[in-house]
Structure formats: C-alpha cells, structure tokens
C-alpha cells in the first residue's frame, strides 16, 4: 500500500497544517464566529423565553423532572450551531474550489479520504469551540446541566459535528457555484432544523401530525440533537449513536466518492486549456 511510505509524524503534520489553515481562516473571520453564536442565542433569549409560557413539556428522557422550555431547546441549539458550521464548511469548500485552493489540497500526496477527513475534523474543532462558548453563556441563563455533562457531551459533539460536517462535505461536491448556497439554506438547513426534535419532542409532534412525526423520526438531525441531549445529562442514547454513526459513514463515503478523480465531481468537470 503506497500510503505507508509516510511516517506517522508526516500524517500528523498534514492534519495539523489543514487544521491550522481552517483555524486561521476562522480567526480572520470574526463575524463568522459572532454570527454562529448570535443565532442560537437569539433563539434562546427571545424565541424560547417567549414560548416558555405557551409550551408545556411533560417529563421527557433524559430529564428526570419538568424542565423549562429553554432547557429543553438548548441541545437543539447546540446541534444547530454544528449544522450551520457544517454548512459553512460546505460553503468554504465551494469557495476553495472556485478560487483554486481546493486543487492545492487535492494534489497533496496523501490519500484523498485523509485530506477530506482532516478538513472535516478541522471544521468540527471549530464547531466545538462555538458549542462550548454557547453552553457557557447559557449557564448564565440558568441552563445548568450537571458539571460532568459538559465532559460527557464532548464525544457526542465530535460525532454529531462529524456527521453534519460530512453532510456539508457531500453537499459541497454537488454544489456547482457559490450562488447555489441559498438553495442549501432553503432545502437543507431549515427543513433539517425545524423537522427535528430540536424545538419540540417527537411525542408532541405525533399529537399534532403523525406524518410530521415520521418525517422528524427519519431526520438524522433529530438523532444528533438527541445524542447531544442525552450526553449533556450523562446518558447514552444508543439509537441516536447508531443513526449518527451510520449517517456519518454514509455521508463521508459519499463525499469521498464524489471527490474521487475517477468518479463523482471531478470526473464530470471540464476545463479549458
């Protein structure tokens, strides 16, 4: 296997380089960091506060007692940060492709799955920083999961971030131009977020519309939300774990396929010269 010619240190160096570039770009785009935080905070401070009086919630696992709507909605908002971050990564990939930076990445001697995986992981690191910053602000809003929940949610954030990032990566291979990104907002982000358990529990959806419940139950984002929700309270939701891990494999496999020179995207592109 030709990939073995690189020592382990070289693989790490390549990963570190990709992560470093993503972090540099993130630091340079402070507006992106603020936007990523303001969005869920607006939902928490305004939307959730307003709905607290309207929406009553029965005791729903993993909660042991009645909880305020803000408490219920917080894991969904954390997942929302990761969803937007994943789509932002998708946007960044399309931008890189248009500016030519993607070629620099793809002509590296490291295998393509590793390069895409490193880029994916770098995006997840950024999303986790955003998620913890949001949880820290939410703590001051009296949303206080158990202290060890903050540690327990870390692997859940890694997995859900990878899954949503891989979805973004896969979508980026299908988006031809940056202008098409509005379509991603309308057809991916909003339906995924609203048709999930982020804002309401599935049993409540079922009461109003069994069809909507089924749609939400088929939405991978629902399982990312539940994985985070349970982990934040120190519990494991195995169904959510299985669905998120399976979708990660599916989306990442699709992205690697689409970026394969013999198949997907690059095989269909034609350039002048």
């Amino acid at each position: 296997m030709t990939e073995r010619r690189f020592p382990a240190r070289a693989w790490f160096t390549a990963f570190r380089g990709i992560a470093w570039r993503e972090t540099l770009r993130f630091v340079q785009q402070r507006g992106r960091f603020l936007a990523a935080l303001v969005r869920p905070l607006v939902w928490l401070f305004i939307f959730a506060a307003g709905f607290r009086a309207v929406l009553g919630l029965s005791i729903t696992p993993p909660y042991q007692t009645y909880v305020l709507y803000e408490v219920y909605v917080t894991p969904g908002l954390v997942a929302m940060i990761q969803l937007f971050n994943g789509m932002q990564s998708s946007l960044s990939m399309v931008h890189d492709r248009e500016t030519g930076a993607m070629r620099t990445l793809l002509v590296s001697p490291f295998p393509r799955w590793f390069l895409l995986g490193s880029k994916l992981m770098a995006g997840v690191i950024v999303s986790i920083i955003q998620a913890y910053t949001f949880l820290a602000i939410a703590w001051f809003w009296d949303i206080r999961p158990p202290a060890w929940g903050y540690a327990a949610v870390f692997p859940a954030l890694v997995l859900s971030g990878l899954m949503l990032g891989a979805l973004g990566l896969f979508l980026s291979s299908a988006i031809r131009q940056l202008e098409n990104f509005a379509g991603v907002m309308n057809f991916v982000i909003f339906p995924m977020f609203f048709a999930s358990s982020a804002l309401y529990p599935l049993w409540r959806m079922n009461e109003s519309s069994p069809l909507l419940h089924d749609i939400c139950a088929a939405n991978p984002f629902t399982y990312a939300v539940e994985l985070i929700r349970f982990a934040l309270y120190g519990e494991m939701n195995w169904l959510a774990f299985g669905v998120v891990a399976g979708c990660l494999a599916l989306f990442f496999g699709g992205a690697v396929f689409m970026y394969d020179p013999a198949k997907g995207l690059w095989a269909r592109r034609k350039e002048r010269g």
Partner: protein
Amino acid sequence: MTTDALRITGLSHRFGSVPALSDVSLTVPRGSFTALLGVNGAGKTTLFSLVTRLYSNVSGSIEVAGYDVRRQPAQAMARLGVVFQSRALDADLSVAQNLAYHAALHGMGRRAARDRIAQVLAQVDLESRAGDRVSALSGGQQRRAEIARALIHRPDLLLLDEATVGLDVKSRAEVLALTRRLIASEGVSALWATHILDEIGPDDALVILHKGRVLQSGQAAAIAGPAGLTQTFLSLTGAAA
C-alpha cells in the same frame, strides 16, 4: 538507471462522448525545459489534470519520475510541483503561511518547512514579502509565490499551466526566466504549457498538442525548420483543423 521526469504513454480521455485527449504520448527528460504548445482547448489543462490526479486516467499510463500516478499516487505526487492556470493561493493568508500550509500538505515538519520557505522565497526574490498577504502582491509576484510553493517539497517535475496568463510583458519574462533558472539551481524539470510562441526557445524540447492529439515533438529548432515556429505551428494546426 535514469528515468524521465514525466513519461506519458497512449493517454486518452473523454468528457462524455467528447474526446479531450487521444493517444497522447510524450516524455519530459530530466533537467529539461519542455514546452507544451497548443491553442485554447487543445487539451493542455486536461492533460495536467490527469497528471495531477484531479481526473483519473482510464487508458494509457502516466509516470512521474518512474512512479505510475494510478498505482503509486503518493510517490508520484510527492515528486510533482504544480502551478495551476488559475491562481490557487489563499489571498487572505500571507505568502509564508501559504507556503507553510503547502509544506504541511507534503508532510514537512515545521523546522524543515521554515528553512525551506526562506530558501525558496530567496530564489523567487520574495523574501521581503514573506509576511505580506497574497492579496497585496502584484500578479507577477503572486505567480512567483506560486512557483515557490510548487518547489517547497523539492519536486522532480514542475508543471506550469499557462503560468504567464494575465501578466504584463515584464512579469511574463521574469516568470519565464525564473523557471529556466530553477532548472539549473534546483535540478528540477519543467513542463511549461503555453499558447504563446515567444516563450519557446530554439533549444527547448517542444510538444505541439492540438485537439487532444500530439502533432509534433522534438527540439523546437528542428520542428520550426526554416519556416520558423509560427509558420510551422499555423501550418500544422491548420492542417489538423
């Protein structure tokens, strides 16, 4: 045994039903400057995309420094430096940051990368601009920075796809002269794709590509003959039109 820097044998490629390259064979000997001459749409960029694995070759073979790009991609790509037709530097990062990123993509450690960045920037006369953002450089300087980036991992072969496009006459001459100098100083070989006949010297190796086929290859002076390169090129491509 000395292998060629690049050896392409019987390479064909299609976009759907449209043939882009048909049975292309060419070699770039070690230490040579080989010009790949062709009008827009001749297939130069497609050829480069196949060599760099942005596309996959399904018929024919491509060897970089003796390594088959399909069967031994890591070894082949490690010996390849590329300057793309469209600019591929990150405009928001500094010149040194761009080079450091590229060094990391080739698995170079930080210290080795730092030393090598200083070395290649000196070679392209951009040491004083190392900390500047790429967006602050002129077109010619950006091209030189791209050449520095392509050299960072000490490749055997430099692929330059219309590297002077969009540059003024002075910058064009500088980039061309720099590439020729690097062949001597770095011991690298270069495949220089162009549609500008002035960029080809009489002693250069020349491959004329037209409509995806190699029409002629050999020393430029021998191909040009008494009629001169322009006349010969027009005659060849006119006959093939």
